[in-house]
């Protein structure tokens, strides 16, 4: 390679450059610049990427609303870096993973911080990705000609949730172990091939060594490989098609004229992508990284919770935040539709997301004229929000320790008869409190017992206790007649002061005077 060539090339570039892009490297530049130039002459980075770097984008896209995609990418890069660090110490073996996590937390210098970065980084990544998704949806950016960008983005979304789930398995504790059990139990609902799917998922007959290795391979090789490749494609599409312009109400997308209009827009009111389009991204990227580091430093890593020993059954498995809504769905779905929904809902939801840019391909982009988009986003947000909120305190789960840990409030047993006191004991000893609240403590599965006597008569209480029903087990075989008598005697005292207990409508109501020894009106005749 002669010097002539290089000089020619520089002259060419100097002639071409200047449209607000990067300055061509100067002959008189420092040694570093000359080294870079020497490298670039061979790699041809500028030749390949300069057009993309300086390509004009609509001026109005330089907005804080456009920073969430790049922020998600920043999280991904951070996850790769912290993930590699963790892999230096973490042992992907069912027998030793938990110990290596504890070692990372307490022995390995700064291991706790890197675990925290990886955990909070994943939370930030899912959150920012979700905001990015909503922004893209509300700005109509998925419409012609950006359908493929949206499709790739959907796959990236699924991959990221896949990383969140498999990452939860890497934190190989009791939550991870029983989370895998839930996954396997769901897979088993496939008709005909259920058992095969379970064995393929677990790598064997039970959740054990090969299961963790499988999820490790998914979390560390398969899904990240997919993610990185697809992110490249996603970015390529963004650069090649151009960033979605700020949607103006009334400016409709048509297949015939859109490309022309977009071209006109960037000609008339465009700015080079770098630096104009990335300034806010750079600022926000820094803020995101600082925030993740701050969360990691302040809150630290999550878990590991208990040792993943399946014989330790005193456990309360809960999924990570992003899967709490699913956890709630499985508790609240009627049993008859559960299998059908587990098998079809994911397919239908993914298909709807994939098809969105095809049934809403052109037309209005602005959120100001798409009330349906608002309704959809608000509905989904409310639905997932409520389910997640329910998942945080899971009112459907029995409170396993309430029967021994939450005493009957004292004022309920003051001035009680011996029989009623005995009944209060039955309420505690027979685990009624695991599902029923009394005062402040107890489970939320069944109705609160504080005012039960104003809802049910003595006979109804007896029937409910013996036969159950309405999601309550029948206690007929588990309580002696004496226990039932005592229990119901106590329950009939549970009504607010000044409110009469429930009574059978077939029996005439006692007059307040009757209690004082007066005669009933009917007796006079």
């Amino acid at each position, binding site marked *: 390679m002669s010097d002539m060539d290089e000089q020619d090339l520089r002259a060419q570039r100097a002639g071409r450059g200047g449209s607000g892009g990067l300055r061509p490297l100067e002959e008189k530049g420092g040694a570093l610049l000359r080294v870079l130039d020497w490298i670039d002459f061979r790699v041809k980075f500028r030749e390949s990427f300069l057009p993309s770097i300086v390509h004009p984008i609509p001026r109005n896209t330089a907005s804080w609303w456009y920073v969430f995609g790049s922020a998600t990418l920043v999280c991904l890069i951070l996850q790769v870096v912290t993930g590699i660090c963790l892999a230096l110490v973490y042992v992907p073996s069912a027998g030793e993973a938990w110990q290596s996590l504890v070692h990372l937390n307490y022995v390995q210098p700064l291991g706790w911080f890197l675990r925290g970065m990886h955990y909070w980084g994943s939370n930030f990544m899912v959150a920012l990705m979700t905001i990015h998704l909503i922004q893209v949806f509300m700005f109509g950016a998925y419409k012609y000609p950006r359908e493929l960008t949206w499709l790739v983005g959907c796959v990236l979304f699924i991959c990221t949730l896949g990383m969140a789930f498999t990452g939860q398995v890497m934190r190989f504790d009791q939550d991870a172990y029983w989370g895998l*059990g839930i996954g396997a139990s769901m897979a088993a609902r496939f008709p005909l091939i259920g058992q095969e799917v379970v064995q393929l998922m677990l790598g064997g*007959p039970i959740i054990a060594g090969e299961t963790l290795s499988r999820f490790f391979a998914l979390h560390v090789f398969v899904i990240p490989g997919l993610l990185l490749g697809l992110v490249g494609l996603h970015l390529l599409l963004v650069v090649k098609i151009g960033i979605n312009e700020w949607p103006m109400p009334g400016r409709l997308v048509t297949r015939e004229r859109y490309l022309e209009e977009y071209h006109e827009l960037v000609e008339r009111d465009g700015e080079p992508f770098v630096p104009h389009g990335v300034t806010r991204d750079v600022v926000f990227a820094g803020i995101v990284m600082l925030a993740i580091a701050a969360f990691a430093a302040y809150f630290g890593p999550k878990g590991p919770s208990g040792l993943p020993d399946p014989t330790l059954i005193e456990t309360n498995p809960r999924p990570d935040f992003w899967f709490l809504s699913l956890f709630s769905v499985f*508790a609240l779905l009627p*049993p008859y539709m559960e299998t059908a929904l587990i098998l079809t809902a994911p397919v239908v939801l993914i298909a709807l997301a994939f098809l969105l840019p095809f049934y809403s391909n052109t037309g209005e982009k602005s959120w100001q004229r798409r009330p349906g988009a608002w309704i959809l986003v608000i509905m989904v947000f409310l639905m997932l929000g409520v389910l997640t909120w329910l998942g945080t305190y899971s009112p459907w789960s029995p409170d396993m320790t309430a029967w021994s840990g939450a005493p009957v409030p004292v004022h309920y047993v003051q001035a009680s008869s011996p029989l009623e006191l005995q009944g209060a004991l039955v309420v505690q000893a027979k685990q009624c409190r695991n599902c029923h609240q009394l005062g402040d403590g107890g489970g939320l599965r069944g109705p609160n017992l504080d005012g039960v006597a104003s809802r049910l008569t003595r006979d109804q209480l007896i029937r409910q206790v013996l036969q159950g029903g309405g999601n309550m087990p029948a206690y007929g075989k588990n309580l002696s007649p004496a226990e039932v008598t005592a229990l119901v005697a106590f329950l009939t005292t549970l009504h607010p002061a000044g409110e009469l207990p429930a009574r059978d409508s077939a029996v005439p109501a006692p007059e307040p005077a009757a209690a004082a020894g007066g005669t009933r009106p009917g007796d006079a005749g």
Partner: protein
Amino acid sequence: MAPEAQSQAGTRRNFLMKIGIAINVVAASLIAVPIVGFIAAALRKRSYQAWVELGPLSAFPAGQTRLATYQNPFTVPWDGKTSNVACWVRHLGANQMQVFAVNCAHLGCPVRWFPESKLFMCPCHGGVYYEDGSRASGPPPRGLFEYEYEVRGDELWVRGGQMPTLANPV
């Protein structure tokens, strides 16, 4: 080069390309077979089941339900504690037993036994079962999964080895 010779060379190159593609297809298929076979190795056995000892009968007093554990018969050395399996043994009397999987029939969480109210309760989605394993309330679509058992001398044996699910109820 004469046009004829050129087209001949072109044909030769096309032919070589076809051969190349064919060799690649053959090689890829040959390699894919063991790769798929390797990944699906867990499927070679349709059912993993073996008789395992749960312990002496004296550990399971009549009229009571107790937690028992066994080591999964199909393990690798790095399974650690995960190769342990827990189950509930209910001794009805006269060596009549019921051995329940600890996994809830709904989505597999470990159920707990409450001897006072004679109920199994699940911590995840609120499934509840009676002492005989039948469903009492909550989302489970059926009762608890039950192991086959045998009394051999003074010992209780069960046929286990697989995570019980709706597709394979032990």
